[in-house]
């Protein structure tokens, strides 16, 4: 028998190789075409999908604040061909549905006002933008229930939350002044009744070496988003002066006139900060330090109290803080 080309050369001949390659190409082409047809058939099948539209409420009715909303989404359950659904769900733009509350019909129940807004009109508008028949769309919810409460306002104190870092020798020469020191908090009665004060946001002020005014945003309490502060910011005035440290020794007195008390030591040393301009004003007579002896509850040592000192100084320490004593009979 005559040997074929492969047996002679050990390789398949070119004609045979081309033939098997063509067959493979045709097979894959048919596979792709059939998959495409299968996909088109699949897309033409009717299916269900839910498309959700976020709701934005605008223009609260006068003097009312929205305290509760049952739904924040309108869901359209659409029954349609897959191709349409894919287009609607993934390719079309979904803008939030705006609901104007200015003319909403309210029902009053004490301090509470309720409104039930039908979603029919809204959904009709949404459906009209789609090429889907009305009867193929189910809308939920049918009504959006809203609860409102009358806006109330109270005046509360502002508490500054500043972290102050002074340059060496500089200190506040006056207490922090807050302008205004009280603000009006407006919101649902139930929420604002729980607010006793409003803190400012935390703010760090570093390298302070002169008086300055810091504008700080007020920080609303957590879970009080419906609440507003009027104004929303306050000014904190820092009155800063250059200070020096000084000391003075003053006698300790016993204010209990009925008992002769002698303390050891008899004097107490007060260390304080004072502004340079007030330094020379300091006089021993401006200070009163006393101890109180209780016959009912005698103790081994008596605490030294600084009853009086000039308002323009800052006390750093009192030494000693406690003294021993003898009762003189």
């Amino acid at each position, binding site marked *: 028998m005559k040997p074929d080309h492969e047996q002679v050369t050990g390789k398949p001949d070119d004609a045979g190789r081309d033939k098997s390659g063509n067959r493979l190409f045709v097979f894959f082409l048919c596979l792709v075409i059939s998959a495409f047809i299968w996909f088109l058939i699949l897309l033409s099948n009717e299916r269900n999908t839910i498309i959700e539209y976020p709701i934005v409420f605008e223009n609260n009715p006068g003097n009312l604040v929205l305290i509760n909303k049952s739904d924040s989404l309108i869901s359209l359950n659409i029954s349609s061909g897959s191709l349409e659904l894919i287009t609607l769900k993934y390719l079309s733009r979904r803008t939030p549905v705006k609901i104007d509350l200015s003319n909403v019909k309210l029902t009053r129940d004490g301090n509470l006002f309720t409104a039930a807004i039908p979603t029919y009109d809204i959904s009709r508008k949404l459906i009209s933008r789609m090429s889907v028949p009305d009867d193929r769309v189910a809308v939920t919810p049918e009504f959006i229930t809203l609860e409102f409460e009358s806006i109330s306002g109270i005046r509360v104190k502002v508490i500054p939350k500043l972290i102050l870092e002074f340059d060496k020798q500089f200190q506040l020469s006056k207490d922090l002044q807050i302008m205004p020191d009280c603000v009006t908090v407006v919101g649902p009665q139930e929420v604002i009744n729980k607010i006793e004060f409003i803190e400012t946001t935390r703010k760090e002020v570093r390298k302070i070496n002169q008086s300055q005014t810091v504008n700080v945003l007020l920080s609303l309490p957590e879970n009080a988003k419906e609440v507003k502060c009027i104004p929303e910011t306050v000014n904190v005035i820092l009155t800063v002066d250059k200070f020096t440290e000084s000391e003075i020794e003053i006698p300790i007195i016993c204010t209990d006139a009925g008992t002769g008390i*002698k303390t*050891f030591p008899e004097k107490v040393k007060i260390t304080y900060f004072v502004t340079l301009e007030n330094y020379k004003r300091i006089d021993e007579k401006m200070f009163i330090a006393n101890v109180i002896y209780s016959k009912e509850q005698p103790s*081994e*040592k008596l605490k030294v109290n600084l009853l009086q000192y000039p308002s323009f100084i800052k006390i750093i320490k009192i*030494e000693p803080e406690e003294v*021993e004593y*003898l009762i*003189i009979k």
Partner: protein
Amino acid sequence: MLKVGLTGNIGSGKSTVARIFETLGVPVYHADEEAKKFLKEKKIQIAIKKKFGDSVFSGSTIDRKKLASAVFGDKDAMAFLNSLIHPGVREDLKVWFDHHVQYSYVIQEAAILFESGFYREFDKIITVAAPVELAIQRVMHRDGTGKEEIEKRMHHQWALDRKIELSQYVIYNDEDHLVIPQVLAIHNELSK
């Protein structure tokens, strides 16, 4: 009448203890304060000027701080100064004792009672003891003196243990002990 010496290292709180005894009605002779008075005497001022010159004077009066610096660490100078002051103080103390014989005991407060050897003249010795660090802090706060300076001065005083060994009574004036009860206990014993 018992003669009681009250001493203690610098910053121990001798003066506070002395004031408590005074409050209890015990006569107290403050040797250091009395010694200062002698520096105002003309003959002593002349002797000091001759020895140390004008540098220890501020105007016509002796500057005690400058004088203390001049004698500090100089044994001869210290001995000279003591020889000027101590006889007068001893004489004054003798008179003071005579004036207080009616008391069961009297106290002399002195910083260098042991160092001067004067302790032998007393029937009882009370030493006020305080931890070194606390004593340094007290002096720094009281006089505004630097730590090194205080430590130098302490170095020239006897060690506390040595003083306690030669004392009949010790009053601990630290942060842990109340002083007045200790003073009252000694007072009651000495008043018997």
